[in-house]
């Protein structure tokens, strides 16, 4: 357990990195548009985690804001943005689905070359 306490911050950060990787992998790998969208959500959450980890374990003692809560604020905004993105994204997926009854991204290749 000492190891954990010695490297508390890194643990959180690396976890975030792993989550980010998972999300990115999802974007790259999955054919299903909805799941791709979810993967992007995963990536955003990973970023949130990073923000929060850094605001709890700051590198520099005195931040300009006098507090590290701007990290929390950032997370707040990210959540809002994520919601917005999700809404638009899902709408677009619906639109695509209308034009061709499929949500498999590798079938969207009318535009190429």
């Amino acid at each position: 357990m000492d190891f954990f306490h010695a490297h508390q911050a890194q643990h959180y950060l690396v976890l975030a990195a792993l989550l980010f990787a998972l999300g990115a992998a999802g974007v790259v790998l999955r054919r299903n548009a909805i799941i791709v969208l979810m993967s992007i959500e995963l990536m955003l959450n990973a970023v949130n985690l990073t923000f929060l980890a850094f605001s709890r374990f700051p590198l520099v003692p005195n931040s300009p804001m006098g507090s590290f809560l701007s990290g929390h604020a950032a997370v707040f905004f990210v959540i809002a943005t994520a919601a917005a993105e999700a809404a638009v994204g899902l709408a677009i997926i619906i639109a695509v689905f209308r034009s061709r009854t499929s949500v498999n991204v590798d079938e969207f290749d009318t535009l190429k070359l």
Partner: protein
Amino acid sequence: MAEAILFYLFAIGVLVAGAQVIFRRNPIYGALALVGCFFFLAGIYVLLAAHLIAILQIIVYAGAVMVLFVFVIMLLNLKEEELGEARWTAWKAIGLAAVVAGTGVIAWRALGPAYPGAPAIDNASLQTRWGAFGGVKAVGYTLYIGSLLPFELTSLLLLVAVVAAVVVAKGKI
């Protein structure tokens, strides 16, 4: 001690659920796994003393956003055969490799050496001018005083999102 255990618990939960999200073939399972993932994350947020954010995570994400997802999935209501098999292409492999390499580099070169030794400061128990770290009051102050412009912009963003979603999802134009 307890933090460590909880961390590993939640961490494993996050990762497993995340893996579920991207490896489940049926999006509905993926969506549920994502909800779970969010819950575990909320737990980790609590460990990070981000109490308000943890709550928001559950309300906004697990609540609102995921409902939207599930709703859309139901709306499209994909048949089994429409889901299609997972295909591997060379480029997927390359992409995966790139992702692993990229995040690996970040973790190994940037995050790893970020804290020489143990973190010097731990804000978990910090009492800010506006109360406990990560508490509603404190974060609120930061939001409304510290970052006014982003906050206002967010409202604009949400409006744009609504209009955009409506325009895109609306019938034929």
